[in-house]
């Protein structure tokens, strides 16, 4: 592993006519990392990926792969390979020929092709299926063929456009695990596009969050979850209660705030915040709140409320609690330790909150 980034985007933009699909995107990827581009539909993820692959030329900025400027270099001469969202399995060829396609194109000697194809199919657990017709594959098998067909080329970077979105939930979770495992053992850089936050979080070393063509935050999953840079990112990743607050004082990594409903709290400063300000939006994850019948001790702030809604998820239970001074009910998530749902709609409860678990999200949007 070297220090030069395997992929470097500097100020890359792409416009279609007057429409800016990707703007001023700058990003450096380390060799061997699993990177995900996460964002809502239409935010420009695919466009960004296709500029790296060479299917689209950026209208501004510069794409470098392994230190080489990629301007004017077509997809067939880039050290990247792609797994397409539709998988793009060649329908007129069997599995073996699909996987061998790129090697034949490179005029690799025949015996070596056979060996590498077998090895690649083994890798995706399709060993021995060379002869199977492309039209006779299940969705999961097609996904694996697409993966094998790209990996057999031994690319420096593997690009994946929503590779799992066509699979059902169970298979998707299994493939997430397998792909992560494969990526670690091969040490190839993976760049994956997804709009599924859980997929991005479970698989990636780092995640880049995109909105409206802009890369808003790049961080590892834990940081992204704990220190999102604004309310939009916070609401896209996991669940979040948004509570308006006032910053009253600031000192060495701590903020003194007054949160609606909860009152005065000392909370950690968030170094990622985009626009700090006096009136800040505060984020509280539902699982960070304590819910109890009696006023809980050892919390920095406690408040009374009324349960307005109960949702049972199996592994945990969500209560919506109406609290004076907060417009929307506060969501509280409790692990389902003892298979009981302790509170019902209309119950009077207490909520407990630790200042350290409150996230400063910066200047309020509205």
């Amino acid at each position, binding site marked *: 592993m070297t220090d030069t980034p395997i992929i470097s985007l500097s100020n890359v933009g792409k416009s279609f006519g007057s429409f800016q699909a990707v703007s001023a995107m700058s990003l450096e990827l380390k060799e061997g990392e699993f990177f995900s581009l996460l964002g809502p539909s239409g935010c420009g993820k695919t466009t960004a990926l296709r500029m790296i692959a060479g*299917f689209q030329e950026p209208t501004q900025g510069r794409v470098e792969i392994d230190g080489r400027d990629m301007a004017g270099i077509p997809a067939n001469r880039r050290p990247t390979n792609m797994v397409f969202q539709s998988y793009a399995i060649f*329908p007129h060829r069997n599995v073996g020929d699909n996987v061998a396609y790129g090697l034949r194109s490179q005029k690799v000697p025949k015996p070596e092709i056979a060996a590498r194809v077998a090895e690649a199919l083994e890798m995706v657990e399709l060993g021995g299926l060379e002869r199977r017709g492309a039209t006779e594959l299940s969705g999961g098998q097609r996904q694996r063929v697409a993966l094998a067909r790209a990996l057999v080329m031994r690319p420096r970077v593997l690009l994946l456009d929503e590779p799992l979105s066509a699979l059902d939930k169970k298979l998707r979770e299994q493939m997430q695990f397998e792909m992560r495992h494969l990526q670690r053992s091969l040490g190839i850089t993976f760049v994956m596009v997804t709009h599924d936050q859980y997929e991005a979080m479970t698989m990636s070393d780092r995640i880049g969050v995109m909105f409206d063509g802009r890369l808003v935050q790049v961080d590892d999953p834990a940081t992204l979850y704990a220190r999102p840079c604004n309310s939009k990112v916070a609401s896209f990743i996991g669940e979040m209660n948004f509570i308006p607050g006032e910053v009253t004082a600031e000192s060495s990594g701590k903020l003194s705030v007054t949160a609606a409903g909860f009152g005065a709290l000392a909370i950690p400063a968030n170094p990622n915040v985009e626009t700090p300000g006096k009136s800040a939006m505060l984020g509280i994850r539902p699982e960070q709140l304590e819910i109890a019948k009696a006023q809980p001790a050892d919390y920095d702030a406690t408040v009374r409320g009324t349960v307005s809604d109960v949702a049972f998820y199996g592994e945990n239970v969500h209560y919506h609690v109406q609290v004076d001074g907060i417009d929307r009910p506060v969501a509280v998530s409790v692990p389902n330790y003892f298979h009981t749902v302790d509170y019902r709609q209309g119950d009077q409860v207490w909520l407990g909150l630790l200042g350290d678990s409150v996230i400063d999200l910066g200047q309020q949007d509205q």
Partner: protein
Amino acid sequence: MRRPSGLTAYAFLYLAFLYLPVLFLPLFSFNSGTIVAFPIKGWTLDWYRQLGAQDTLIQALANSLMVGMVSALMSTAMGLFAARAYTRYRFQGSAASEGLVMLPLVVPGIIVASSMLVLFISLGLKPSLTAVILGHTFLALPFAVSILKSAFDDFDVSLEEAARDLGSGVIETFWRVTLPVIAPGIVASILVTFTVSFDEFVLAFFLSGNRPTLPVYIWSQIRFPAKLPNTLALGSLLLLASILLLVVAEYFRRRATKSRV
């Protein structure tokens, strides 16, 4: 939901009106009498047997086969590029140019034929089979374009991108991926355009000069009552061939649509 019962009867009458006359052709081609009228005198295969011995007929058939094959290949090759452009790219005037390509479907044949005759003569091209080939290519182009367009509509663009991604250049991608995947559509187009040319009369009549195609030859024979049964036999064979060809073409067209994984 029940359909109004009159509608079914109407549909059958309509079909009978359309196709019954066509059925008279093979029926009377087996009639041993030379007059085309009921009752049928007796059954014979003589009219079919005599066909093989008629040299001018064989020559006309050869002309038609040649014209049909060349214009089928030309219109399909041109249609291939046009269809790919229409389905893949949005460009200025694409709708207009597509409309123009489809025009021969609606312009009366006699107008196309006479204007082509004038055009070719003014260009110094005498009526000949070459002229017929050019005319038929023009007539068959809309059929080729619409069949191939549906083949390209069903073609996942990312197949070509995948080929590029795996190291193929533009030309290799076309040969190794695009062409094989839409091959059934190409076969369908060749068969249909061949049939269009093979059956065509008006243009061939204007442009063929002294080397008639089969339909022109048949027309010239119809004037002689004695030759009529032969012509009926020939017509029946052509009918059978056309139907077979179109059935095969339809089979390939459907296969093209299904090829998407």
